[in-house]
């Protein structure tokens, strides 16, 4: 088990190194010059040269990479060109907002998708199952940002019950010491703030959750229905158990495994989806920052954000792997 985990960590480091190289090279090769965007149009070539030297952009890409890598190993991800602050601080400051949004979306998707899968299995072959299938098909065929727009139209404009922009109402005094607003508001028992934050997060989280919920519902229902034919489920029925018990106690623990793998993969897509959704809802997270960084060609910031996303993705996969071992006794001794 320990060996397995160490192996995973080693491969994770290799992956991250690869990501770093690709990002570093690509953002320097594509057209667009961060220096040109910082200086007024009448800047002299000497000004440009001086600024390039200041940010180390006059050196070769390989040289730049190793300077950057050396810094990273000491915890220094460079300085943002547009905001003139250390990248690490900026990125970590925004990370909690995105994590809270993604996890909220994941929780909604799991609860909702799981409930639909269980209901679809319980009433399989009936009109209810057909209705669930149709709903799933619709949720899947519309991308998350369009769901965002639909939600804004309904719950922000026609029936304004939720906030449509930002992370928290600007008028509120925030007593928080961390950037995990949602989490800290619960810890501090400030349910007034909590309600305001949830009201801001709910629609973006829902938009992100829709497609994932549909995937979970579809896949879990499929594997539940297959499991329901297996002998141990039938045997459990002869013991006197009814449909609900048989589905949740006998079938679900075995049917959940393929869904778990997929949720891991899809959750990383969901995190990717935060980039556009955060923009749409002016939510101050990493994704919104990433778009600004790309528009401004803020190379150190782009690198920092991409590396952080890569760390999150590999972390999610690692967690799914470990969960798989916990849920499947056959893997435990392997």
């Amino acid at each position, binding site marked *: 088990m320990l060996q397995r985990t160490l192996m995973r960590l080693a491969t994770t480091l290799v992956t991250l190194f690869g990501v770093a190289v690709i990002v570093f090279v690509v953002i320097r090769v594509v057209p667009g010059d961060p220096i040109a965007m910082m200086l007024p149009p009448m800047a002299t070539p000497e000004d440009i040269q001086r600024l390039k030297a200041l940010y180390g952009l006059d050196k070769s890409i390989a040289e730049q990479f190793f300077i950057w890598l050396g810094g990273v190993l000491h915890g220094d991800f460079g300085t943002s060109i547009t905001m003139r602050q250390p990248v690490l601080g900026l990125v970590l400051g925004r990370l909690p907002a995105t994590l809270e949004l993604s996890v909220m979306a994941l929780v909604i998707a799991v609860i909702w998708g799981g409930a639909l899968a269980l209901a679809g299995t319980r009433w399989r072959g009936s009109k209810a199952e057909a209705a669930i299938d149709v709903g799933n098909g619709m949720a899947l065929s519309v991308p998350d940002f369009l769901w965002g727009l639909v939600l804004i139209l309904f719950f922000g404009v026609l029936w304004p019950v939720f906030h449509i922009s930002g992370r928290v109402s600007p008028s509120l005094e925030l007593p928080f010491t961390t950037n995990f607003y949602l989490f800290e508001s619960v810890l501090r028992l400030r349910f007034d703030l909590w309600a305001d934050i949830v009201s801001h997060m709910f629609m973006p989280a829902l938009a992100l959750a829709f497609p994932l919920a549909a995937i979970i519902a579809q896949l879990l229902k499929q594997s539940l229905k297959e499991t329901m034919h297996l002998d141990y489920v039938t045997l459990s029925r002869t013991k006197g158990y009814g449909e609900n018990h048989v589905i949740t106690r006998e079938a679900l*623990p075995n049917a959940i495994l393929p869904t778990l793998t997929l949720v891991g993969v899809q959750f990383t897509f969901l995190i990717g989806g935060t980039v556009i959704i955060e923009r749409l809802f002016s939510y101050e997270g990493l994704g919104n920052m990433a778009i600004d960084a790309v528009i401004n060609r803020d190379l150190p910031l782009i690198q920092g954000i991409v590396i952080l996303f890569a760390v999150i993705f590999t972390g999610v996969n690692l967690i799914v792997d470990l969960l798989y071992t916990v849920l499947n006794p056959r893997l435990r001794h392997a």
Partner: protein
Amino acid sequence: MSFLRVENLCVDLKGSGDRLLRGVSLNVGAGEVMGLVGESGAGKSMIGKAILGILPRSAGVVDGVIELDGENLLALPPKVRRQRIGAKAALIPQDPLTALNPSRRIAPQITDRLVDILGWDRARANDRAREILAEVHIADPDRVLRSYPHELSGGMRQRILIASAFAAEPKLIVADEPTTALDVTVQKQILRLIRDMQARHGTALLFVTHDLGVVAKICQKMTVLYGGLVVEQTDVHGFFRAPAHPYSRALLAATPRHDDPAASLNPVPDDIIQAVRAEVAAADRNWRNG
């Protein structure tokens, strides 16, 4: 007084209306062993499934009586029926490799019925599980109870399933080809084990099989089926001495014999198949007209 009384049991395939069981009647007394034989598709497993309330969703009972311990199961509301079946009957399934839940330990798979359906307290149920495993000659019950199914051999798992079936002292056990999935050396042991357990506990046993040799070893009475129709119902001695129905005679002749290999493997002749099919068709006509 028979413990299980099945009367004119008819099972249809839903939608198409195809008949799977055609007015099957049988009686199994307390402690009696009844063999259900027939070729694949004859409906022998279907009878056991109908009794235990585990017919596939595509099939349904359309007529008849299934009386367990003097109570017509088909007249009970579904929940009560399930619990009666769970308390008084049990299944020994065909394939030990698929009949245990791979993600649960053995102990709860034996004790769940005792605790949830029969209302025993957990400690007593655990003691019972240990005791019943020892009874099926499992040397180290505590280790086995803590194991997951994948850690145990096929023969071991079949012993566990037999133990689990007997754990609640049911009055009726349906054994659905319990040796078919096992290799030959294990088959004999398992068969002997089922017979010993049945005799010791005085359980009525409905033994579904296509193997007449097994019937001769374990059953007192037998029912021969073809196309969901009872072809012959007799005591086992009578059957092997002089099968009454031509189809039964042909079935007996088709059984491999190790004492006379040359006389083995005679397929059931076509004219006999035609004749028994005509009987099935006649039964359907009677049913439609009456």
